[in-house]
């Protein structure tokens, strides 16, 4: 039973501490977290509580000060592991789309393909499939600066899914969108995660979004202070 639970663990965070400014600012204080494969987890809390930093240490974008982070059984300890995870295993979506404004949406979405040196024809086929699923197929040839906020965020979603990740990390993915787009993008995200059985960790302070996730963890001052399972 124990082994089965361990095998099903997709993300494991054990006693993780993270501080900045030579230890003067502690952002994560002994965080422990296990996320099962296919689970949709919401991280809630006010700004500055450590949600984004927790996502960053899970992806390896930030090194931990102390503790251990494992993703799919790999301990995120060095550059090689981090690069491998980001190339093949993790998709990251931010509050802002972070697309390059003077490139077309197609060019933006193919950036992960450049990193892996993957087959261009297969990459383009996948791009069109994802663009159709997210409703931006007609915008692929347009420059990002010509797109609406919702289209840009859906484009960012396509880019994050290009490497067919098993784990989606979303940092306030709907935070910069108006209400109608917020709902559409979140539905899309949820659908794409559930259909493929992806694990998703979503940092949000929107209670309506958190309520639709399998589990919600509440964070305060760098600690997990509460949990709700649905």
């Amino acid at each position, binding site marked *: 039973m124990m082994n089965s639970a361990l095998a099903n663990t997709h993300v494991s965070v054990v006693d993780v501490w993270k501080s900045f400014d030579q230890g003067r600012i502690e952002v994560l204080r002994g965080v422990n977290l296990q996320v099962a494969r296919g689970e949709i987890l919401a991280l809630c809390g006010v700004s500055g509580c450590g949600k984004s930093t927790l996502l960053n240490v899970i992806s390896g974008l930030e090194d931990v000060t102390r503790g251990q982070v494992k993703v799919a059984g790999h301990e995120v300890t060095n550059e090689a592991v981090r690069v491998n995870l980001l190339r093949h295993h993790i998709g990251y979506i931010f509050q802002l789309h*972070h697309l390059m404004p003077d490139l077309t949406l197609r060019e933006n979405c193919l*950036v*992960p393909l450049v*990193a892996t040196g993957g087959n261009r024809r297969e990459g383009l086929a996948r791009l069109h499939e994802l663009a159709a699923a997210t409703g931006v197929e007609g915008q692929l040839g347009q420059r990002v600066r010509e797109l609406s906020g919702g289209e840009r965020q859906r484009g960012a979603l396509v880019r994050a899914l290009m490497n067919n990740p098993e784990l989606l990390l979303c940092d306030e993915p709907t935070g910069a969108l108006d209400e109608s787009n917020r709902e559409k993008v979140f539905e899309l995200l949820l659908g794409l995660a559930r259909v493929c059985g992806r694990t998703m960790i979503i940092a949000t302070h929107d209670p309506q979004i958190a309520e639709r996730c399998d589990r919600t963890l509440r964070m305060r001052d760098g600690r997990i202070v509460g949990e709700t399972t649905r």
Partner: protein
Amino acid sequence: MMFTNLRRHRVRTAIGAAGIALGVATMLCVVGLLGGAVKMFQRILNNDSEIVVFEKNVSDLFFSHAPVAMAGRLEKLPFVKNAQPVLFTIITAPDRPVITCFGIRASDPRLRKAEWLQGQAADFNDNGRGVVLGERAAEFLSAHAGGTVALGQDTWPVVGVVRIENGFENGGVFMPLAECQHAFHQDGVCSVVTVALHDGKGADDVKRWVSAEYPKMIAMENEEFNRSYSQFKIIKTTAWVVGGCAFLLGGLSVTNTMILSVFGRIRELAIARVCGFSRSQVALMILGESLLISLFGTALGWALSAAGLHLLRAIPALQGYIEPRIGWMEVAGATGLAVLTALAGALYPAVYSSRINPAQALRFE
């Protein structure tokens, strides 16, 4: 990706490429111009011969004193076809303070091979006083065959005007050797003796003979002389140093371009990292962009230098004097330097970009 990045920042790319282009063009023009000048000097000395004999330990061939009698003795050696004594001097005319004067024999290939515009080769003889003028010298001295020309302290009859490809010779005065020696108080001596060999063989024998018979003289094969003559070395070194400085400026322009490029897209580079780019991929991308800029710049520099040298050839004051010419070695050298400069210039931006912390870069959005 690299092409796309350069295309997105066209102005920045153009400025970087322009820096390299100016470096390449300056280097090729300077090297071509000075290299052409060296070639001209070399051709004056080579004079249809394989060996040049001159006095040891002189800083300039104008100060060399070689006995003319040596030429006669050299010609008696079995492997020597002919030996020509040449006296180099500077002579003045009323409006021209510096004119190169060549004291030569009538049998010297310079005049034999020249195109005679006025007069004929037979009019120039070893025992006469008549001088032959290069075409340009005749122009600026307003002289013609059959007339006279005031040179130095005397007036000389002009027996011919010749057209010679070599600008220095075309702008010079040819005087019978004996007259020249007398006029410049150099009786019995010349500056150099050029030696032509039968089938080009026997150079070592000539060198040994000169060393044994005239210990104060030295015989060198043309190639050897061209390599070791300090004046040529100075000119060539100057060309490469001036060209190198131009490249340094070009390199700074690339560094500046690449630093601006990196600082202006820190978030983009951070996103590239989030999308799976490794540190080395980011660094290589910056180095690759710089390399592409340098290749664009080099191609542009080639075109600019070709145009520049074409213009230099067309300048009347330089026509015939200096023949700007660029060889494959110079082109390859300039291209190699452009690539090295670009890579060196992009090193700091590349290292900086590879060290960007993506989380921090995105946090400060």
